[in-house]
């Protein structure tokens, strides 16, 4: 198996790993680096549980080759709380009872973060659209949508 060196910034820390050529970013993050916050639900790009943010874009880490991430800035849910303080999205998910089994939660939060970074005050429709690539099988969509809208309101109040 050909090994390739890959360097990227993960949640603010420099990472350098030798990765099997053809390995996914999901595998690199979970099995090499030990960030297990992205989850492997389908490994075929349909469930969204492995969603991460690469250079500001929402990406499925199960369909992203690790070797294509050289020099990238990657963010996962594990790095979202700063200094032990929950991100407004995390706080909103916690308060709004928007987690059940929790397996889809890290991917949902990443998708929601990309939305709020671009659209600080989204409509309900925009939230639904932004989360449409993330499957929740405990049928928790309504509390999740409410949590994202609540986090958006909290953000706009902070800015004001």
């Amino acid at each position, binding site marked *: 198996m050909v090994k390739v060196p890959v360097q990227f910034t993960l949640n603010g820390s420099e990472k350098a790993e030798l990765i099997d050529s053809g390995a996914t970013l999901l595998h690199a993050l979970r099995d090499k680096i030990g960030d297990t916050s992205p989850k492997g639900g389908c490994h075929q790009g349909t469930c969204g549980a492995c969603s991460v943010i690469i250079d500001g874009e929402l990406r499925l880490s199960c369909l992203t080759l690790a070797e294509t991430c050289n020099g990238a800035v990657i963010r996962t849910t594990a790095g979202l709380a700063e200094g032990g303080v929950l991100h407004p999205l995390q706080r909103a*998910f916690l308060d709004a009872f928007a987690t059940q089994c929790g*397996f889809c939660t890290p991917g949902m939060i990443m998708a929601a973060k990309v939305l709020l970074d671009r659209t600080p005050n989204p409509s309900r429709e925009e939230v639904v659209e932004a989360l449409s690539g993330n499957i929740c099988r405990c049928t928790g969509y309504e509390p999740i949508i409410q949590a994202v809208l609540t986090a958006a309101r909290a953000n706009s109040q902070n800015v004001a």
Partner: protein
Amino acid sequence: MELRKSYFADQRKDGLHEIGQGRPRLDSPGHVTGKTAYFADRNFPGMLHLKMVRSPHHHARIRSIDISEAEKHPGVMKILTARDVPHNVYTILILIQIGPEDETVLADGKVRWKGEAVVAVLAETERAAQEAAAKVKVDYEVLPAVFDMEEALKPGAPLVNEYHGQNHYLYDSGECRKVRFGDVEAGFAEADHILEQTYQSSPIEHAPTETTGCVVAPEGNDRFTCYTNTQAMFFTLDNASIILQMPGSKLHFVGGTVGGGFGGKVDVIVEPIAILGAKFTGRPVCFIYSREEEMQISSPRAAEKVVIKDGVMKDGRIVARKVTGYTDAGAYSRHSPYGAQKGAAHYPGPYTIPNVWIDTYCVYTNRTPSSAMRGFGVTIGDFALEVQMDKLARLIGMDPLEFRFINAYRDGDMKAHRQPTEGAALIECMQEASRAANWPVAEKYMAMSSYRKGG
């Protein structure tokens, strides 16, 4: 949420500290920070991957299994067949005296459904395990199969499961679970109208986001820790103990974190064979279903068929109900004999009917074994019963909600299985539903109560 405290005010204590209060979920902080540890988040150095060779046939005799080529595949550490499993034939509910043992951990001599586990391959990588599994040669003699419950119950149908000897579960009450209450034929004779309808359902897959699996770590001294997403920890621990013929003190199970289950993770399928692999190799073992396996191999909700015959009076009283229910267990029992039994208790519905006759069958076919899923045994029954209630109401020209008020069981009523009704509150639920749905009913129904002293 608004609590309607006017109901049963004299029967309730209101000085409670927990009930009616919002409480944060204890596991939520881990979920939102990505720190919750699911079984697959455990990674051990030197961990092996387990892949199953599965039956491509619905029903076949196994003439021979040749693992010689697969064993030579680079990275393969161990290949397990039926003869490696200490107690290979088991059934989950044997722990509560529901037998016979009827399912093989790894197929022995025969496969009874398409997807059945035949050979387990343990290798250094998932890919090596997959490639080696493809090199296992199994010689099958394909047998006639049966997929339809009524076909399976006919004389001369292919015998699905020899451990039962016939294609239905044998209850202590005979070939089916029975409920007999009153005189159902006298009830039909008295009825103004009779309506018989048949309802059918297909199997339903739970499709949890986290697929089924476990990670096993050998701890030395022949002890093993099994990180699992089982929904039935003690069924799994005790059945693993039986299958592996190991005392429970050798097995440490870590669970409680399940990435979606809906009942689909109560079967004991992945843990015993993964522990066996760890025992043979001395290495940690990961056995996790691919998404494809989860959808095709994991047990679905059973397909059901329900035949309901009701006798009803013009004034709305149901006077007789006869139900025959069929639960498709697939090739093995798992939780289906219990599901069919629950149906027998449930088919009178939440209604007081003086004459009831119920038979429910747990039927074996060459389909994927079905098992637990959210109210299995009663959910499809409820669908059928409530559609039937609407049809009965239409038949006699009555409002369907008012029709339910007439037949709703109330405290003190005797149910068909001879448990007196207590704490029903059904009338009150329907009164609230009537308001919430803006579906008004006559004032006399809004004045009813489930609670009636002395009837």
